[in-house]
């Protein structure tokens, strides 16, 4: 199983039946393909869809119906379409239960940076600030290190922040980590890796509590 597939398969388990979920550009939008066809969830796409679903068959693909990442989606029964002001009213009024989002950096305080690497790559804010600030629960999906092998899970973010203290959980190809008042708590390992090796790939200090039920950040 590839690293990405491991992250996506674990991410699916975060979705509570009956919830409204936003999937950010990048890894998160791919989570949809791992959901069972009859799963009770409404996928919110910030370009104006509640009830987006998997890509249609090629012959019925609609060039006027994409998700925020540009992928051609279909609509589930009960879906609705609306303008961008309504779409973000839904977000700012906390009607979205869960957002899965990508990160350049995430830190021990639950801070998130994913919009700007000054002078190098500034994709922009998109919906991320509003989703990060207003969604009830934020789960970051990210590779544990960047393409140069440097940690992405830091003691304190160095890049410009998207939002402060917003992240509840981090899922990488190596572990499921919760942001708590005591710091970062490793809940599950997703690969055969020792505590010491996992810590070595993580800048922030990790607390290993794989069996226990710590209180989560913000609860």
């Amino acid at each position, binding site marked *: 199983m590839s690293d990405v597939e491991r992250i996506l398969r674990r991410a699916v388990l975060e979705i509570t039946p009956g919830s409204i979920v936003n999937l950010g550009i990048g890894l998160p939008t791919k989570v949809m393909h791992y959901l069972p066809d009859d799963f009770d969830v409404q996928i919110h796409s910030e370009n104006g869809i509640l009830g987006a679903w998997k890509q249609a068959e090629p012959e019925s693909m609609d060039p006027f119906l994409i998700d925020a990442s540009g992928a051609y989606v279909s609509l589930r029964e009960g879906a609705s379409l609306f303008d961008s002001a309504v779409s973000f009213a839904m977000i700012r009024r906390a009607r979205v239960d869960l957002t899965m989002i990508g990160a350049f950096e995430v830190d021990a305080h639950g801070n998130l940076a994913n919009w700007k690497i000054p002078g190098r790559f500034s994709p922009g*804010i998109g919906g991320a600030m509003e989703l990060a600030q207003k969604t009830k629960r934020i789960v970051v999906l990210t590779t544990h290190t960047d393409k140069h092998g440097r940690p992405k899970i830091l003691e304190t973010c160095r890049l410009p922040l998207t939002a402060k203290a917003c992240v509840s959980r981090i899922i990488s190809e190596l572990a499921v980590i919760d942001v708590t008042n005591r710091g970062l708590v490793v809940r599950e390992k997703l690969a055969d890796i020792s505590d010491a090796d996992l810590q070595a790939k993580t800048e922030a200090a990790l607390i290993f509590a794989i069996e226990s039920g710590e209180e989560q950040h913000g609860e």
Partner: protein
Amino acid sequence: MKKNRTLESAIASIPSGAVIMVGGFGNPGTPFSLINELLRQGQTNLTLIKNDANEASHGVSRLIENGQVRKLITTHIGLNKNVIDRFNQGEIEVAFHPQGILAEKIRTAGAGSFGFLTDIGIHSEITRPDDLLDWQGKTYKVEMALRADFALIHAAQADWLGNLVYQGSAINFSPLMAMAADHVIVETPDLGAPGRFSPEQVHTPGAFVDSVVQLESLTSDYGILEHHVRR
């Protein structure tokens, strides 16, 4: 009064230096034919307001690549390497807003108001001290309304009075921008006589629309982008 115009004359009303809102989120809703005519006529020093910069060599990216755009007010350009490169090299000014804040700034102008209070981005570098307002014990960020000289809009269907209907995810910023610009130019492949829509079906009432351009057909610009198809 019929608002039908030719593509050439509608776009010829736009001067260099204009501030132009352009509908669309990715491909859906992008008025490719109006944009391509603007490319052909060559107006320069433009300020564009659009959710994104389309993808490289598509839509507004062509105007930017052709050096016609001075400033882009947007939310996200992550899918367009050409525009990111130009931004990094200082060839174009880019102002980023949170997506829903951009929508609300446009909606506010379209409603004839001047601004609103929010807490979005209040602790981020997009907020300057001057933007903050203390009011009745709480601190807010003041966001001013955002208007434009022109709006370029794609509608799935329209009538001669300028009543508009959008489709799919092509609604996005279009109904908001259609209310927030002084001169609203609409393209549609499907233009007909008044009475074709049930009145409650109309998304944008014709009062906001100045010109409607009928497209003979939709070019390949409006089609499926193969690299976004999952195989």
